[in-house]
């Protein structure tokens, strides 16, 4: 016998359900506001004139003078190009290297693979500051100082552990029989990687590649340390070093405009790849 005496009426349950729904949406709205407000504030501020900056208003005033002066700033425009080159090449390079490493670590069973994987994980927990001075020396020896190569090289250190780790676990999840079939079909290890595994790794490549790109695009500390002159700067540092008409003026509007501008490419990339990213992040959990 089911107990029916201590239950509410159907109408009460219906109201409760509606109430829960309202509560849920209220919660979601709060979180969204909390997360999106800083970016919204940046957008508003970037469209304000110097005078109106200090008056509080949540409505954008649609004055694009900040953007115009920003786009006329050759240092900033050069920095965008630098950032693009460095971010793209370091993420592509790290994908290629980590894919090869991941195949070796994930599939070719050799004695050291476990130790290597643990080392890789350990490297990724070091704070950047720890490696900064050592990296500075290495870059000096290689003659990369004040060159884009310095940043590409040092970003590999930041990106590789994480891409290798993600791709290794992804490769481990692919069925072994697929690879055995390819071996019997006469494929070399390289051909297995390029013709059998790589086409199946689209989601993983997209998500790790994008995260690597974001990491390289936003990096500040190495970019500040290893680059000396304005024409080689990347965007985060260039924004930090933007100057106004006099040295006592902080060009807040322009900085906001610059921040909005450099976030746009990331937003566009995320929107393009969002489905693949989600697929890549969940693919380890559920087998297809």
């Amino acid at each position, binding site marked *: 016998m089911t107990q029916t005496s201590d239950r509410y009426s159907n109408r009460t349950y219906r109201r409760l359900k509606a109430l829960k729904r309202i509560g849920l949406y209220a919660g979601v709205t709060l979180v969204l506001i909390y997360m999106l407000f800083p970016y919204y504030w940046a957008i508003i501020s970037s469209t304000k004139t110097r005078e109106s900056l200090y008056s509080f208003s949540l409505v954008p005033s649609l004055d694009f003078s900040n953007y115009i002066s920003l786009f006329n700033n050759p240092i900033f425009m050069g920095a965008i190009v630098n950032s693009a080159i460095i971010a793209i090449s370091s993420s592509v390079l790290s994908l290629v290297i980590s894919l090869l490493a991941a195949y070796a670590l994930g599939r070719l069973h050799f004695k050291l693979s476990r130790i290597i994987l643990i080392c890789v994980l350990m490297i990724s927990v070091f704070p950047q500051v720890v490696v900064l001075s050592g990296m500075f020396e290495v870059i000096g020896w290689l003659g990369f100082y004040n060159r884009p190569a310095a940043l590409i090289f040092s970003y590999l250190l930041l990106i590789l552990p994480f891409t290798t780790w993600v791709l290794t676990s992804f490769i481990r999840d692919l*069925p072994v*029989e*697929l690879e*055995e*079939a*390819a*071996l*019997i*079909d*006469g*494929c070399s290890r390289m*051909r297995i990687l390029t*013709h*059998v595994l790589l*086409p*199946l790794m689209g989601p993983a490549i997209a998500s790790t590649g994008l995260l690597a790109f974001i990491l390289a695009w936003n990096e500040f500390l190495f970019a500040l340390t290893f680059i000396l002159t304005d024409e080689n700067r990347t965007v985060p540092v260039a924004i930090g070093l933007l100057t106004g008409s006099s040295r006592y003026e902080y060009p807040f509007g322009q900085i906001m405009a610059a921040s909005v501008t450099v976030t746009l490419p990331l937003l566009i990339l995320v929107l393009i790849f969002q489905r693949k990213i989600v697929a890549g992040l969940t693919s380890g959990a559920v087998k*297809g």
Partner: protein
Amino acid sequence: MASVTLKEVSKSFGAFDVLQSIDLTIEDGEFIVFVGPSGCGKSTLLRAIAGLVPVSKGDVFIGGEQVTDVPASKRGIAFVFQSYALYPHMNVARNISFALETARMAKAEIRQRLTRVADMLKIGHLLDRRPKQLSGGQRQRVAIGRALVSQPQLFLFDEPLSNLDADLRMEMRFEIAKLHAEIGTTMIYVTHDQTEAMTLADRIVILNHGRIEQVGTPRELYDRPANRFVAGFLGSPRMNFAPVHTDTSSGLLHGPSGFVFATSGTGSSQPVTLGLRPEALEIVEAGTAQSISGTFERAEDLGYEHIAYVRLSDDLVWTIRSTEPLSGHARGQAVGLGWQIKDLYLFNEAGIRVDVEAARGPVVAVQS
């Protein structure tokens, strides 16, 4: 077409010995089935022959040539996987021709071979589809097509039907038998399903704990199992076993109640277990001469056959199979089980089958 010879093939993963000194010769054109419980090493043995798993010790010969260290792709073999292992991102045509493409064969010849294989397996209408869009049976056909197209001298199947439902399994079993009859290539087939083993094999290899228990035709293995494991493994329901002991003073062999056996002196190997297949038993009235006594437990009617369970003691229940209905007895009713000497199997301490006539001399069943 090729024979296969294994000489003392062993494989260990760390301290775990998966295969222990396997010796086996497979004739050209034979259909061999490896069968055994899970974890017996049958798949590993197949992979060792394929070259997917390097052997720890011993040698593998295919077509009389030593191939122990030859890579899988150069052994002239084809492998059909349990999961089919079709490339998910390629269509059926490309799946089948990928090996030829890898070998840089001329496009015209690839197309010609593809067409022939597709016709043979009746998958011509599926060539543009992706594996995801195929049913289990179709995927199986494509996997076989992929194996056929490289014209191997040896086919290896790793539980190819275990992912299919019962109907389809029967159909594909028939197809594989037909394929073997048509092309006559040597085939090695791994399964845990004894029906597949009994129906497909020219010879069955029964494996257990990384060793070969017995090799022989299905009939030989069923009628003359070498040991208790083989006797218990083949047959469904499995053979009934019961402990026996020899009374040294009288020379009588005592088993479950009612079972007494006159022996003509003790041989070198004492039987400790007896075996009787479910179909060798019949339910008779309790107290019938030379019958084993027990109590009736339950009957199952499968339509085409009938199974009954009879309890001999607290921890021993025997199965009886018959084409005739076995109901009509109440639960707990005392019954007898009739049997004949020709159906009796005896096993010694080591589990080896003891020949009833040879070990015991002429045997007469007597009333105790």
